[in-house]
């Protein structure tokens, strides 16, 4: 009998996080349908109304449309930067973990620690300072500040993913199934990328969601400082920065509403990341078709529960190295 589909067990925090992210995406989507974020629609700042649910900004632009554009811009920069960080950091970490204790591990980890020596936000500002905020022209291609901000944030996150991936890889490499796969003569590349990587993913994914929250915050901070995306494109950071000058005039909506959306994004990704990092079950190497471990949360798994090992792989097979 096929099991009934079940909702994932997120816990209260996870559900709150999911709700926040959904709300964030909802504002980002609905707002984009609401109007042109650059058009000047009122003579000056106006409080929220039916026509402009988030009000208008100091130049008379629809704030819902601009918040939506800002949310998408922030999301795009964050996804790109975290994607870049995972793409670079994870292979480095897996490689270092595989060579645990060796020279390559030492070189990679010391390099990563050098990057980590600077506080992350300072490091990102340093990178942007080096690259400048002006558009870069490579022949016919013009690279604006957005991709460079994503690159800088992403590079700042590489060490974190490399370390998480390395730690997880070191643990996995000590597992019996790896020993057994080696004994069966499975190539190292296949062990690493088809078996070990599956179990390295969960902590990396959890870290990625947590990093998303930090990236949303970092992008907002950079834009607030004028180091982010150039106007008139909105980001949540530069919306809040612009709103700062209007607070004394009583324009409460200007900072509050984009700020709330920013908080939703940060809180949502943070809670989801925490849930994912804490509750994601391990997968156990099962060959080309990856089979997940039984749907048990860590709380349900009793201590000392032996990991599931495919029945067809005999245990206690000496590694090729030992036979030589």
């Amino acid at each position, binding site marked *: 009998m096929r099991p009934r589909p079940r909702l994932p067990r997120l816990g209260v*925090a996870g559900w709150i996080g999911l709700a926040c992210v959904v709300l964030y995406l909802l504002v980002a989507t609905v707002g984009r349908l609401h109007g042109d974020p*650059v*058009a*000047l629609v009122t*003579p*000056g*700042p106006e409080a929220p109304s039916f026509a402009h649910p988030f009000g208008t900004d*100091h*130049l*008379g*632009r629809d704030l819902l449309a601009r918040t939506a554009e800002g949310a998408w811009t922030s999301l795009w920069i964050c996804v790109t930067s975290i994607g870049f960080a995972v793409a670079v950091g994870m292979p480095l970490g897996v490689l270092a973990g595989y060579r645990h204790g060796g020279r390559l591990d030492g070189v990679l980890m010391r390099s990563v620690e050098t990057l980590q020596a600077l506080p992350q936000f300072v490091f990102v500002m340093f990178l942007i300072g080096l690259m*400048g*905020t*002006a*558009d870069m022209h490579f022949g016919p291609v013009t690279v*604006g500040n957005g991709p460079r901000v994503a690159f800088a944030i992403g590079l700042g996150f590489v060490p974190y993913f490399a370390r998480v991936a390395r730690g997880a890889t070191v643990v996995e490499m000590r597992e019996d199934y790896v020993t057994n796969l080696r004994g069966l003569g499975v190539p190292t590349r296949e062990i690493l990328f088809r078996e070990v990587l599956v179990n390295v993913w969960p902590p990396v994914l959890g870290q990625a969601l947590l990093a998303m929250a930090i990236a949303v915050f970092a992008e907002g901070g950079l834009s607030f400082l*004028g180091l982010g995306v*150039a*106007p*008139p494109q909105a980001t949540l950071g530069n919306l809040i920065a*612009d709103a*700062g*000058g*209007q*607070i*004394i*005039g009583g*324009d409460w909506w200007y900072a509050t509403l984009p700020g709330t959306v920013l*908080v939703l994004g940060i*809180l949502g990704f*943070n*809670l989801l990341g*925490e849930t994912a990092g804490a509750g994601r079950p391990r997968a156990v190497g099962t060959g080309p078709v990856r089979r997940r471990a039984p749907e048990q949360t860590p709380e349900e798994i009793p*201590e000392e529960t032996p990991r599931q090992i495919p029945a067809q792989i005999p245990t206690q097979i000496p590694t090729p190295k030992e036979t030589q």
Partner: protein
Amino acid sequence: MTPVRTVGLNRRGFLGLAALAAAGGTGVLTACSSSSGSKRVADRHRDGILRIGVASAPSSLNPLDSGSEITRWIAEPIMESLYGYDAKLASVPLLADGEPQISEDKLAWTIRLRQGVLWHDGSAFTADDVVATLAHMLDLAAGSEWITYMLGYLSRFEKVDAHTVRIVLSKPYGLLRSHLTNLPITHRDFVARKDTMMGTGPYRLDKFVAGQSFTLSRFDRYHGGQYSGGAKPAFAGMEYTVFADANTRVLSLRQGKVDLITAPSFATFDTIRKDKSLALVLTEAPLDVLSYVMMKKEPFADPDFRKAVALSMDRQGVLQRVYGGEGTIGQGPIGPAELGWDATLKPFPPAPDPAQARALLARAKTSKRSFTVTIGTNQGIRDIAQVLVAGWKQVGLDVTIEQLAGGPWSNKWLSRDYDMLMNTFSSGFTSGPANYLTLAPAGSANVLSCGYANPEVDRLIDTIWQTSDHAERVAALGRVDRLLAEDAVITPPVYPKLALAQRTELSPLDPTMLRISRLDPQHLRFV
């Protein structure tokens, strides 16, 4: 198994506490900010210190390098020029001892210097200091902004005796008197220093915290040249504090922490007007929105494209949305507070004219419909650019905004590698009640040339620079203004007013001095 209770603050708890703290903190700050500052001001004024809140701090303290108000507002009570402005903005001797002796061919100016003047380090002011100042200004490696005024005109300068200098010109230079009235003279050992100011003024710089504050004290051995009838500086000292955020500046003024602030944003005007202990000062001053297009390349090489861009500028939008209506609709490079202003010059409508702009674009030879406008980093110019971009979008122009800090922005200007350049600039400290620098790039041979070549404009600019006849200069300025506007070469969207705010316990700022961008704090007093 017994569950282990975690003690301490986890991530979730921290987030919750942070949210509560943020909400509570905001409330506390709001409550504090509403307290009256009158008693605080009365108590504070006992120390005799004038406190000024400024928007930003200069990266270099050398007033010879920059005519920017950011540097010069701090330098005003510290540095002095050979000539100063009287109450009617006429140039009168200050560090000079009388009018210059000008040779018949107008190529040699001999200037006697006032004796008995001391620098703030106690050394005597001599001709060596003037020579060192002029030499620094003309040193290409020094990077002084003044070099653009002097290059090609100053031939040499020499010390005649300890208190006389002679300036020899390569051609007549009527503007020299204006420059000598605005150029601060610096101690010979300090001309290249960027970390301090050494002047002869009534106040001296005691200390500063980079980017934050500047502390001045009264110079008791001041020669007295700026004061008549035995008057003396009223304050024991002055303190300039940087409040980068406009709201914080206004709140500090309301709370009585400072007596005077620069650049309140128009969003705060109502708040200032409602407070009876504050006064909002709005005045016409030589405050320019620099606006240049590069005519050596597409698309601005095409006159129809240029005019279409100028016609589709939302000037009214900029004036209302960015300056709250406080200013004048822009046309040519010369504004209402500057010599040569022509109120009848109106080639462009206040609101964009999309129909005519589209017709011009259809007629234009260039097929390009996009360009980049390179702006500075201050909020005002960023807002101006955004309003203009919205207007240009209506006629199908795709405009990218590029923001650059001061140095890179100037490099772009010098390298001539731009489509359109915009920034704000106060010319009062370099040109007094005029703006000569704005016109310079229209000259075909100028180092900042924007690629425009019009023999009549070149000739008129030469006249403006060279003539000693005030009426002739004003007429030439007016003509150049018209030509540059009608040819859509320099078309600023607005001429904004200079905005300041002060406490009423301080004597009112002098409107005459404000017309040349001066705060003139050394002549204020507590009332």
